[in-house]
């Protein structure tokens, strides 16, 4: 299918999110869209998919101008999309999610569940996905949810497939699979628009690259361009892709975890007798595929999830059983994994969110009263320091782009003296420019003597930040390895292999991304 977008423009209030964007997508090509957070990539794709209506401009499919006013129009024109934010109904099963909107029915509108089941099995077999059709979506790890999203898009037999950051939550092995699937589709003549912030992936698969900055197309690039070149085109300045980092100078243990066990709400052991230690001035990364207990581990450290057994101490003081408030006061900073859910209050202003866990302390709160002038002052300082792109401290955080929302959370947590920083997925979905900044900031915190515990599924991030890596699998720490461990090996350990097994297998079966 030949798709042409010309002069697409969309503004939100006075912000022009897309400014006369032209884009041509040839049949059977994989077209990568690159751009900073907030550049307008998703906005563009949402217009193509009928979720947003352009202010002006037109969409031409196979030479014919079309009006796409709703997703069903888009589906009708053979456009499929995997959205940046999951479009899955959490309380539905995988099969229900996949059949939704194109249900096979018996007479009388009764669902043909068998058919849906078979369809899911068939597709997951064809593409090598392992998905249980009867599992509830809310019960399965994010990585698997992403596969469900992809299956959903595939079942439509789309001729143009939009993938908006599908790899943010996938492991290297899963990304590999996805790349294989994309190639298969391309061979069948499907065009793919692929959005990602990971330049390695772009280089591995793109046929064509278009870069968007501040709502405008700023150029095209060839897949042969270097990562540095791509980054510079995106951000508009040179970007250091490697964080300058002195070797760690670990001090005394700050965080000690002994035999920590967490049973989750469904009665499964999420964290299984974990022992860990983080020292002052070092960064320990907890690596693992989503859903292997890292989240619960981090939440347990903050007292957000009750623990079934074990002990947590900070600087020798026992924290077990203390409230979240006490733990924050004891000097733990926390960046939660799901920022929209746990990290900020979307309808609160940037200024308010910057004191979300500080508002009671001087100078923001005095007695019962809130000192709004201090809160504003703080906001301006933080916005300056962290280069938070917002049009004002008094705007709701929900109006910021993802990367900037993340900066708000980090800025808040780093704006007070810390003994321990616990940061889950600190740069998920964040563009390279911001990653550079956030990483530098975290390393600076380490160098000030703070113990840092990073939970990440991102091997690049782990490589860039960590001094040591603890790999978690099914609630257990399967090994603690140095930060220079090859990524294929880490990937295997994340799939449950012990360190020794991993070494062997990794050398025999290198993965695409591992070897780039």
């Amino acid at each position, binding site marked *: 299918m030949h798709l042409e977008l010309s002069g697409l423009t969309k503004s939100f209030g006075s912000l022009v999110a897309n400014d006369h964007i032209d884009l041509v997508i040839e049949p059977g090509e994989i077209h990568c869209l690159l751009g900073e957070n907030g550049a307008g990539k998703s906005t563009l794709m949402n217009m193509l*998919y009928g*979720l947003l*209506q352009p202010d002006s401009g037109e969409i031409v499919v196979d030479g014919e101008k079309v009006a796409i006013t*709703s*997703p*069903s129009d888009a*589906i009708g024109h053979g456009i499929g999309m995997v*959205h940046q934010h*999951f*479009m*899955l*109904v*959490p*309380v*539905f099963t995988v099969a229900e*999610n996949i*059949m*939704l*909107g194109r*249900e096979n*029915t018996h007479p009388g*509108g*009764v*669902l043909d569940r068998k058919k849906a089941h078979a369809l899911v099995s068939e597709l997951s077999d064809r593409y*090598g996905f*392992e*998905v*249980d059709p009867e599992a509830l979506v809310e019960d*399965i*790890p994010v990585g*698997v949810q992403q596969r469900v999203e992809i299956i*959903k898009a595939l079942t439509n037999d789309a001729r143009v497939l939009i993938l908006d950051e599908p790899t943010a939550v996938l*492991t290297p*092995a*899963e990304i590999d*699979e996805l790349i294989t699937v994309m190639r298969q589709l391309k061979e069948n003549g499907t065009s793919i628009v692929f959005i990602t912030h990971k330049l390695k992936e772009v280089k591995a698969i793109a046929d064509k690259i278009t870069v968007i900055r501040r709502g405008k197309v700023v150029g095209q690039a060839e897949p042969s361009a270097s990562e540095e070149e791509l980054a510079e085109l995106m951000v508009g300045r040179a970007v250091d892709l490697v964080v300058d980092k002195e070797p760690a100078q670990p001090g005394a243990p700050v965080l000690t975890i002994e035999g920590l*066990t967490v*049973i*989750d*709400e469904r*009665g*499964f*052991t*999420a964290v299984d007798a974990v022992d860990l230690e983080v020292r002052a001035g070092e960064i320990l990364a907890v690596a693992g*595929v989503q*859903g292997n207990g890292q989240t619960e581990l981090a939440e347990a450290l903050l007292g957000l999830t*009750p*623990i*079934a*057994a074990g002990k947590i101490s900070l600087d020798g003081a026992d924290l077990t059983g203390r409230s979240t408030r006490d733990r924050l006061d004891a000097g733990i900073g926390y960046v939660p994994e799901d920022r929209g859910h746990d990290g900020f209050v979307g309808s609160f202003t940037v200024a308010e969110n910057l004191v979300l866990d500080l508002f009671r302390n001087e100078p923001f709160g005095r007695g019962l009263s809130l000192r709004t002038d201090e809160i504003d002052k703080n906001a301006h300082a933080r916005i300056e320091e962290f280069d938070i792109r917002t049009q004002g401290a008094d705007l709701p955080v929900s109006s910021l782009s993802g990367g900037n929302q993340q900066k708000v959370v980090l800025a808040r947590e780093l704006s007070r003296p810390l003994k321990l920083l616990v940061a889950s997925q600190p740069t998920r979905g964040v563009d390279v420019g911001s990653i550079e900044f956030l990483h530098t900031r975290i390393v600076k915190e380490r160098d000030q003597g703070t113990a840092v515990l990073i939970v990440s599924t991102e091997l690049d991030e782990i490589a860039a930040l960590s001094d040591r890596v603890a790999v978690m*699998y*099914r*609630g257990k720490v399967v090994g603690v390895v140095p930060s220079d461990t090859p990524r294929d090996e880490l990937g*295997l350990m994340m*799939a*449950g*292999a012990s360190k020794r097994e991993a070494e062997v*297998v990794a050398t025999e*079966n290198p*993965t695409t991304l591992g070897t780039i």
Partner: protein
Amino acid sequence: MSDTTVQDTVREPAPAAIEAPADRVRRLRVGGLMLVFALIGLGLAIVTNGGKATFQLVSGDLQNNLLGVPAQPVAIFLGLLGLVAAGAYVVRRVPQKYSGWLAVVLGICFIGAFLCWAAAGKTFPLANQFQGTLNFATPLILGALAGVLCERAGVINIAIEGQFLVGAFTAAVVSSMTGSATAALIAAAVSGVLMASLLAVFSIKYLVNQVVLGVVLVVFASGITGYLFDQFLQEDAENLNTPTVLSAVKIPGLGDIPFVGPILFNQTILVYLTYLAVAVVTFVLFQTRWGLRVRAVGEHPKAADTVGIRVKRVRYSAVLWAGVLAGLGGAFFTVGYAGSFSKEMTAGNGFIALAALIMGRWHPIGAMVAALFFGFATQLQSQLQIIQTPIPGELLLMAPYLATVIAVAGLVGRVRAPKADGEPYVTE
């Protein structure tokens, strides 16, 4: 371990030795409450008079179909059994899967012991207890089902009370004018749909906050039925407000089953419609395409939109169908049971239906159980007032409401509404 694609989608079940803290809290809370009730039951058993407690098993002549039991021994037996059940729950002597049944056992034992105590030396019409339960519960079930349909689709329905009132009013007027039960029921359903269309248009199209909207619609319904009653029905009651009450239709065969037959299967068409509605709503919501879409737009409308579902259209259809049920629920108050219309005659039942739907966790069956629970408690207090127990009448009047609070706090606990319930869907 050579297959690198194997991912861990499944977690190992927790070893039985460790209990999740949340489960433990719940077990102790529910168990504690159960123990309290078991002990109250036993206490009542101990103070039960000697003599016989008589239970009438079939409605009708009070002299027939009686079951006399020695009050105190039976009460003590039930009390002890309840204590065992509660104890077993607290110390987890029964696999988790079955522990819910312990609560049921305790509930039955407690009520049994309580009835033995209350009815010692007297006759307690058991069949009438169930009959009355059904009478109280029928409109509540219909109302709660209407709520389930709306809210599953993401539209909060606080207006059930208003839909009841309008349904009751219309049914009464149409029945009086035409003399036809069918016409009356259809008219009630239509009027329910009209009210529902106000709810739908204002919430879906004009994005009015659904809570305010619901409350306002109740006020509106009470005002408009009151106004029409004042201006027309009062003056011409003979032609406008003398509805014919539906008569009971015995279902051949089923109606002859001892004990349950006459209670369940000798009812008006409206009651049968209610049974049917529970089954149909359950089936439709969970087994049909429309139901799947309804639930999808109530949980994640944007996701539904992205797969090409017309979110608003689905919402409209759900809300309007709900109107049918609520209108029929309203008809119960006039043609279904009590005859002529009077102002404000639904007396807050719509709000109880709302509570039932939340207590029933937005599930048709749950809503029905909650409605029956409330009906049971209301009927019990009324019967106890007649047979004169030491419990003060004032306390008895409050009892159904207090019982609901206890049940909700003790047993039901946290409930989760459909994710997008109350949130209008706005597209750019």
